[in-house]
């Protein structure tokens, strides 16, 4: 790791510790079961991981997040690129997009469960449908912003559709795909929890709903933070390195 990288990691670590310290101070000040301290929550999570069902629930939720995220990104990227390239398609599907964008996640989840039954497929479809319009909008804007000069260049040199997609279009869309993935992952896991709470018998959402019925705030926070931790690991170990790889051609910014 470079000196800059170490500094950045140190800064992020300190910032996270400050958040925990603030939480600890609030818990000490309130001294109530409604806001347990981070240590109590961590103790619960470790205990559930070793002797309870935390890991199984985590795995179930993670599986739903991965599948629905992949489906939403694939359909959303393809749709966004198509709408960005064709004004006619954009005009045709604009209303569909607006309707989907404005339908509350809860309504989509309930309708999917009613129409498709309380099944795994309904849960995945509900989560993907919530995320797809968001990806479509981001990728549509990205496709509209592609460099007309490079488009003319690829036409003048008669690049094949495959070479155009791989070398000209996708690298220009990479920042938009990364933005859609970032915001998408955060959104998807929150909606996965909602659909689990509404209609699944396992997963972090289901576990939180049972803890909620017992008014067990420690349990609610323990399950939620365990999954947040998994998402942070994905962000730092998967998304950020991928983004850095895609942007390796950018000249390093000058030092102040």
């Amino acid at each position, binding site marked *: 790791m470079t000196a800059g990288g170490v500094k950045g990691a140190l800064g992020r670590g300190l910032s996270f510790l400050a958040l925990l310290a603030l939480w600890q101070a609030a818990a000490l000040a309130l001294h109530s079961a409604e806001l347990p301290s981070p240590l109590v929550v961590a103790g619960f999570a470790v205990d559930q991981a070793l002797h309870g069902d935390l890991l199984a629930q985590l795995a179930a939720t993670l599986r739903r997040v991965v599948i629905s995220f992949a489906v939403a990104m694939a359909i959303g990227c393809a749709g966004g690129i198509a709408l960005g390239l064709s004004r006619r398609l954009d005009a045709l599907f604009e209303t569909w997009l607006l309707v989907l964008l404005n339908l509350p996640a809860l309504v989509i989840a309930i309708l999917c469960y009613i129409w498709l039954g309380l099944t795994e497929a309904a849960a995945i479809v509900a989560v993907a449908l919530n995320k797809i319009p968001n990806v479509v909008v981001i990728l549509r804007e990205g496709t509209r912003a592609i460099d007309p000069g*490079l488009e003319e*260049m690829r036409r*003048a*040199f*008669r690049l094949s559709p495959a*070479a155009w997609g791989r*070398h000209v279009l996708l690298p220009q869309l990479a920042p938009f795909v990364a933005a859609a993935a970032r915001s998408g992952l955060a959104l998807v896991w929150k909606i996965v929890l909602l659909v689990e709470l509404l209609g699944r018998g396992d997963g972090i959402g289901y576990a939180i709903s049972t803890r909620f019925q017992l008014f067990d705030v420690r349990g609610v926070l323990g399950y939620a933070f365990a999954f947040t931790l998994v998402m942070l690991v994905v962000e730092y170990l998967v998304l950020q390195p991928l983004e850095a790889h895609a942007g390796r*051609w*950018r*000249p390093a910014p000058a030092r102040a």
Partner: protein
Amino acid sequence: MPAAGAPPLLALEVRRKDYRTPAGPVTALCDLSITIGRGEFVCLIGPSGCGKSTALRLLLGLDRDFEGAVTPDPRALSIGVMFQEPRLLPWRTVAQNIALVLPRRMRRDPGPLLAEVGLAPWRDHYPGELSLGLARRAALARALAVEPALLVLDEPFVSLDEAAAAELRGLVARIAERRAMSVLMVTHNIGEALALADRLILLTPAPGRLLAEVPLETPRVARGPGWTAERRRALAGRFATIAA
């Protein structure tokens, strides 16, 4: 210099080219005819905004919305293009930028080509690391990679300092001579056109029409500063749009 009477490599006839704008159609070009012979170096000259780049886009087949024709179909011809801005892919290295314009079966090591344009040490650099002069050389190498029958250059030396422009001009002249290919160069710099061209095609201010065709029979090597100054004065005397 092309053989007299030989059929042209490419011919563009424009009766009219309009652009649609919110205020109504605007005529960019009318009654313009451009022919390029085999092995001929033609310069298209005109004031800014007269439609030179539009004429290039029509000739390259990038815009087919006009009254007139390009013969033969430019798709049937191998054409290398160097745009005014280098238009390199910033996320691909110099060598990759050159390789990707070639069909897979024609891919080969771009080393000799890069050496020819003086870019061998820069092959694995990204375009963002190059000066404008080096980026233009990379764009020239990309245009040459397709082994063009016609090399099209759109203001290739603009925005370069005089030393870099002179160096690149010399390089273009040597390569055009060595490969015996046809070149069409758009410029508004009469000096560089007089240094390089076999024939000048002069356009009027917008909308661009053919003003005159001026053959330059003196061999390039014999064109010294005195010859250039004298030709420039003669052209300025005949055509008001050309500065002496």
